[in-house]
């Protein structure tokens, strides 16, 4: 079925997805909260307040690169193709504004909200998927 998409990595993707689901489950059942990265990052940096202790917010944020290091230690180097810094800076700004206004990102709305069948998260996920697809289509049209 995936022969048409030689660049796809379905097994690694599924494995990664299961780990992300476990991470969100640990946060929900262990701490009673949503594992939304943008919200927890905002809490850690003091942009937003929440009931999550600030130390715990930092522990989660620092855990993200630690987890990537574990994968690098086991699997070797990780491929990464980044755009030039000015584009990344523009994108970062827009992501920062958007996640605050939209109360979440791919993790909070996409993983935690969709699996909870939250109508808000479904609308948010459909919206950012649509604008993401449109953005890539427009950028590629000019390249």
């Amino acid at each position, binding site marked *: 079925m995936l022969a048409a998409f030689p660049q796809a990595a*379905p097994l690694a*993707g599924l*494995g*990664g*997805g299961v780990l*992300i*689901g*476990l*991470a*969100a489950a*640990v946060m*929900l*059942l*262990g*701490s009673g*909260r949503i594992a939304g990265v*943008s919200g927890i990052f905002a809490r850690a940096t003091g*942009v*937003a307040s929440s009931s*999550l202790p600030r*130390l715990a917010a930092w*522990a989660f*944020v*620092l*855990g*993200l690169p*630690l*987890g*990537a290091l*574990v*994968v690098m230690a086991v*699997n070797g180097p*990780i*491929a*990464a193709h*980044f755009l030039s810094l000015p584009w*990344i800076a523009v*994108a*970062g700004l827009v*992501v*920062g*504004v*958007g*996640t*605050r206004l*939209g109360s979440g*990102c791919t*993790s909070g*709305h996409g993983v935690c909200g969709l*699996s*909870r069948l939250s*109508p*808000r998260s479904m609308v948010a996920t459909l*919206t950012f*998927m649509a*604008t993401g*697809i449109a*953005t*890539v*289509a427009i950028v590629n049209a000019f390249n």
Partner: protein
Amino acid sequence: MPQKLTSEALVALVSGVLFGAGLALGGMTDPARVRGFLDLFGDWDPTLAFVMGGAVLVMAIAWLIQPRMIHPLFSEAFTLPGVRDITPRLVIGAGLFGIGWGLAGLCPGPGIAALVIEPASAAVFVVTMLIGMVLVRLFEKDA
């Protein structure tokens, strides 16, 4: 350090490490793969769908367990989003987030995890994302 704070921080750390490992394993720390998924009308890479599917599946099980628990394992109460309104703010925010996501192929989780993969690029993303979040906060204070 109080025992409750320690256990909440540990839960958050475990969740963060699992999350970061899942992102790295699933290829989400490679912006080219994320942009490949959003390139629906071009050279489509379906990997992200497997990541999302795996994560949502596992998290859906956690949402089935959650109502059967009196309180989370390591804290006193569940603190979950209760808002249900679909507001213009939600749609505009999610729409903006999707534009940034498509532009750079980065969302908050992978951006932070990639600090150990492509430090300079990821740092620019994380810092500009923080600036975007602070901007929203400043505007809201004026409103």
